[in-house]
């Protein structure tokens, strides 16, 4: 029985490390938006998740939700005072003209899924 316990402990510890690595130490690639327009697919998260856009220029961000999860049915760009419903399989265009440089988070209505807008 002791071997069972040792085995379970080792598997458990490995699993915990794996969860930490898998969810908490990921690094998202930053996608640079050059043509002032980007489609973000909403499906289990946002792809691309991190976009970089230029300061002072208007960028169109088209959110297209393909995931029926209730949580994702709204997108909130708090720093830009935008909260929009995302009807399933429809393109919802949001125009932003950033006036400040920096990192601005956006998320789903409940703050579970996150993305980032880098203004450079």
């Amino acid at each position, binding site marked *: 029985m002791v071997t069972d316990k040792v085995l379970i*402990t080792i598997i458990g510890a490995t699993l*915990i490390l794996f969860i930490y690595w898998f969810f908490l130490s990921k690094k998202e690639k930053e996608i640079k938006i050059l043509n002032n327009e980007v489609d973000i697919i909403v499906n289990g998260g*946002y792809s691309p998740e991190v976009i970089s856009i230029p300061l002072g220029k208007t960028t169109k961000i088209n959110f297209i939700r393909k995931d029926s999860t209730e949580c994702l049915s709204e997108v*909130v760009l708090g720093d830009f005072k935008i909260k929009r419903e995302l*009807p399933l399989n429809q393109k919802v265009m949001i125009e932003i003209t950033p006036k400040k440089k920096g990192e601005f988070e956006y998320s789903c209505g409940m703050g579970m899924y996150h993305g980032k807008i880098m203004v450079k």
Partner: protein
Amino acid sequence: MRNLTKKTFPIKGMHCASCVRVIENALSKVEGVTMANVNLASETATVTFDPQKVNDQTLASAVANVGYKAGVEEEIKTEDEDKIQKQKELKNLRTKALVSLFLGSLIVWGSFPGLMNTAPEILKNFYVQMILAIPVQFWAGLQFYKATIPALRHRTANMDTLIAIGTSTAFLYSAVVTVFPQLVMELGIEPMPYFDVSTVIIGLILLGRYFEARAKMGTSEAIKKLIGLQPKTARILKNGKEIDVPVSEVAIGNVIRVRPGEKIPVDGEILEGESSIDESMISGESIPVDKSKGSLVIGGTINKTGTFTYKATKVGADTMLAQIIKLVTEAQGSKAPIQRVADLISSYFVPIVLMLAVATFVIWFDFGPVPAFLFALLNSVAVLIIACPCAMGLATPTAIMVGVGKGAENGILIKDAESLETAHKINAIIFDKTGTLTYGKPVVTDVIARSETTKQSQSERSLRSARDDILQLAASLEKGSEHSLAEAIVNKAEVEKLVLSKVEGFKAIPGHGVEGMIGKNKAILGNRKLMEKEKVDITHVGSHLAKLESEGKTVMMLAQNGKLLGLIAVADTVKDTAKSAVQNLQKMGIEVIMITGDNERTAQAIAKLVGIKRILAEVLPDGKEAEVKKIQAEGKIVAMVGDGINDAPALASANVGIAMGTGTDVAIEAADITLVSKDLKAVVSAILLSKKTMKTIRLNLFWAFGYNIILIPVAMGALYPFFHILLNPIFASAAMALSSVSVVSNSLLLKRVKI
């Protein structure tokens, strides 16, 4: 009959009603289009066409040919379609919840100790239980998998991940026990499935989501009401004829007729007629407002009694209602600083719960009582199910939605969530005097005849006639003057229906007053300096003068042929609600300060009337900002209340800038809160609303965090060593479902709060 399609899509580049015509014509000319309707306010076109002949491209190029851009690819669903879709989703959710709970309860009946003795044999059969559990797991519970799998691809985990893993664990274990009972028997465990756990959890969580979604729809009611205020048509007068047109076609300068009971289509100025207008939906003021020629009217408000015509001054996105809708939508989309902590925690929350669930399994397996495997399994499932990140995510935004909406219904327009949050912390409030605490318009307050100053006894009647004579003479003199004090005197004479005399040789003496000949008599009206100059004896009215001046009034003396006839005092009057508003603010523990360009004595007089103890007098308009900063330097969190135009820099530098009653323009950049009405009660209401909203948010966060902090350890078995208490996963799911519903419901309670 051909099959026609209707499509609504956005149009870019429109700025006037003529654009509407141009685009409509262009679209109508396309072969196959039967109807085209363009709306300027919403910047959309709705086209009915034959899909065989017309495609998106033809529509887009027709619009492009006349110089605009059509977003044909972004079809807009109407409000109704969205509503129908939402209701369909809700119904679907409810069906799934009820079917799951029904099947789950059959399994509970057949498996729960004590209860199972009353159940028919068939329900006790593990295979039957499995058959009942399959649709719950893979039909009703499909949405959890559908959300989990794409999320995992993004290396993200959410609420659904926890439920999918938790219920799948219970289901798979039960399936193994049912099909291969000898496997667990070899481990010394009685082969007992837990289909009741997997099904009831799914049923309860879906039921919780159903109630949560229904409650969440209630949080956006205020904005829907505002949108519903927008009128659809307007009755324009053109060449002497009345034509009904869609409100989107009304242009600036159009003359519109409004009859009793009708909605006013756009903002404008009354040209003819008078009426009383119900503006409660915009200003929160329940008493209808009387309007006549020259008064401003607001689109979306309701005309009560009279018929009038007015000239449209603001249309489309510039109307007050459109600006309010924009402001409220933006505020509801903004984030309160208090939410940052919740956001940060919820982004780490689910992975941490997953790690805790694994740790729970290991600890119970290694150190738990026999059968350790079962304890480990059920407790780790309980941990996965009890964790509720949704409650944390919903705590702040739902309260902000309801709070901002409630404000808008009461004429309190809040710029963003941060302003709403800061307003509850203020401990000093600075009121600009003129136009904020007072009406900002001088009126005649006292008329004193010479006979009153000389202790002569006289009848009430002769006294009144003496006062009327003074007012009549003074008003006759001032008729030619443009001074604001003169206007007050002339207005008063008009109210008293006095007939003015003809004045010859009128002369204004700057800094002194006016003079003129009435008949053969020389009359003068002015201040002390003028009396001294004309050598008029005023010694016997000295005490009256001092008294009136100490009350903050401007006193003018009237003399005829070198002899004093009487005094007229003029003052800006305090708003009716000023005193009670100041008192209420002081009761909240807020220091009330008055700022004014007036001299100390006038300022003191007004301050005394409304109960303000601290005054900042003789402050020039450009010095107000510095005064705000000085008070902030005392460590105070300052709100500044002003008119939003002259006080813009001071409003911007205050922690919370509150702009009051600014006509039809609500888009004031400098103000954090704009009050539609001029009533000072609204200032108290705004601060009260902020306090109540923050209280709701705190209670929500306390509940959401407290719930997770207390119940996750309980689910892990923290109470077991002391009290032998463990959390059944079924109860865990009930608690979880209840927690997010209770947070949303608590936010909805804000609607009932009195402000």
